[in-house]
């Protein structure tokens, strides 16, 4: 009797988890851009390094390392294959949805683990632009404060939704937003719809 007939994730996730592609193993790797996001105190951390083909403006190589769960490992492995040879600006636009579909979907509660890879990739691309004297191309992910009392940004709200918040009450519990004056409730409800559509529709 095998207990592994049903793996908790899809077979593609399992394949990337068991044989992760493009793991950075070379300590002397000469990257053109480097991005690191998350931190181990929060439970996951991701490093992505890229080499760029300056002739074509494409990603010539993408390697990564992570302190993360199976979803983080598999999604970054899949992403590293996806962006190989891709024009930089296109790679910049890769999001969790494309990665998840390349993996044949992830459980909803694991989507948040898969966003680290593309976040780190964007950081690496920005780093490449900075190193090569093209700071005008750096695209900052601006965050906006939604709850002024508790100082909670739209990014934090998006993170909370990725981590499982589905209602205004759950957003309050996770972020402490709208627990003082309550004026941002309508904005929170709107953002909840926007981010649910972005990540889970």
């Amino acid at each position: 009797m095998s207990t592994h007939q049903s793996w908790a994730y899809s077979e593609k996730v399992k394949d990337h988890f068991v044989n992760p592609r493009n793991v950075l193993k070379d300590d002397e790797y000469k990257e053109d851009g480097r991005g690191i996001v998350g931190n181990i105190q929060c439970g996951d951390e991701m490093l992505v390094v890229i080499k760029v083909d300056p002739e074509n403006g494409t990603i010539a190589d993408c390697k990564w390392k992570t302190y993360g769960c199976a979803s983080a490992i598999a999604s970054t492995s899949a992403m590293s294959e996806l962006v190989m040879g891709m024009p930089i600006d296109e790679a910049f636009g890769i999001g969790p949805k494309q990665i998840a579909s390349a993996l044949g979907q992830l459980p909803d509660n694991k989507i948040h683990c898969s966003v680290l890879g593309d976040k780190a990739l964007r950081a690496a691309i920005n780093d490449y632009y900075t190193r090569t004297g093209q700071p005008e191309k750096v695209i900052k992910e601006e965050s906006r404060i939604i709850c002024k009392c508790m100082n909670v940004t739209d990014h934090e709200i998006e993170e909370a939704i990725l981590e499982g918040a589905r209602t205004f009450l759950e957003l309050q519990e996770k972020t402490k937003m709208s627990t003082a004056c309550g004026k941002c409730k309508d904005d929170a409800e709107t953002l909840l719809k926007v981010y649910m559509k972005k990540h889970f529709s």
Partner: protein
Amino acid sequence: MEQRQVYLDNNATTPLHPEVVRTLTETMACFGNPSSMHGFGREARGLVEEARSNVASFIGALPEEVIFVGSGSEGNNTVLSILACQSGQCSCDRDHKIHIITTAIEHPCILETSKCLEGHGSRVTYLGVDKHGKIRLDELRASLTPQTGVVSVMMANNEIGTIQDIREIAQIVHAGGALFHTDAVQAFGKIPINVVDLGIDFLTVSAHKIYGPKGVGALYVRRGVRFCPLIHGGHQERGRRAGTENTLGIVGLGKAVELRSREMAEEAIRIAALKKALKEGIVERIPDVWFNGHPTDCLAGTLNVSFEGAEGESMLLYLDLEGIAVSTGSACASGSLDPSHVLMATGVPVERAHGSIRMSLGRENTMEDVDYVLDKLPGIINRIREMSTAYTRR
């Protein structure tokens, strides 16, 4: 070739003891309602009462002090809910003692119930623990007030296995005028328990942690202490827990307890030897590891270990691919990134809490199992560390 299967998650649940399976199979056809006066009912009643005697004598209690419940969680909820009872209909002696003391490392069924009661007007004190997971007796003493109704401290912790000093705790609680409850779901059937000797007022146990069936547990309620049921509406269990008795489950629990009384002592020695070999083998083969919990006052089969730079869920799943079942209290498995509340309470650094797994041994494990784990584990940890941003080989 069949892959070897090594089950090291006995604190989560256990396989049925073969003799429990036999007893259950033999009893399966007994369908009478234990409350019925006719022969069918009397047969079922006889089985239920035999099981009750087994449980009672195993913990040094009287049969009438044992109530069968649907789970450990139900038993724990029942005890805490007594405090919240505000009903004029209820016979429980309401004395407005609305303060509960419990610990930061309890099972969620205590912590969540406590939180819920806070919303209903109770006041709850959560005692911290030292680095080995023991509560501080001085802190307990200082927390007791005349309003303290019940103190609930788990006998042994599910994640790290730390065993509390129950006798001393019960003495302090009683000196402070409160009742003492202990969640003994993990300790029951692993270490000897005598409720009179230890001074326990309420004690919760569960069948499926001791090679019995799921969906049945027992609650010890010392004779004469204040009680009010969680589930109303029937005379079953002397009016203390309504609902037709789960005869088959209760029989399974009774049998499992009988087997524990015969096998527990010897098995604890054997399992302790397996854990020692596992622990020493890990230390020999894998650098940068930490063991969590108490060095001596710990359940024989529980081993909680942190591997620097390796995340819990990925360890669990790579081990699963080799047929080895462990658990992680941490993070991502549950979809939340929160590290184990137990490890955090012991002051383990958060990155070490994220990188921990729990291996819990049981009666079916052998030295071959330990050898197999020691063969597979170093390679897995090495692989994870090779792709980890959080590990630098020293």
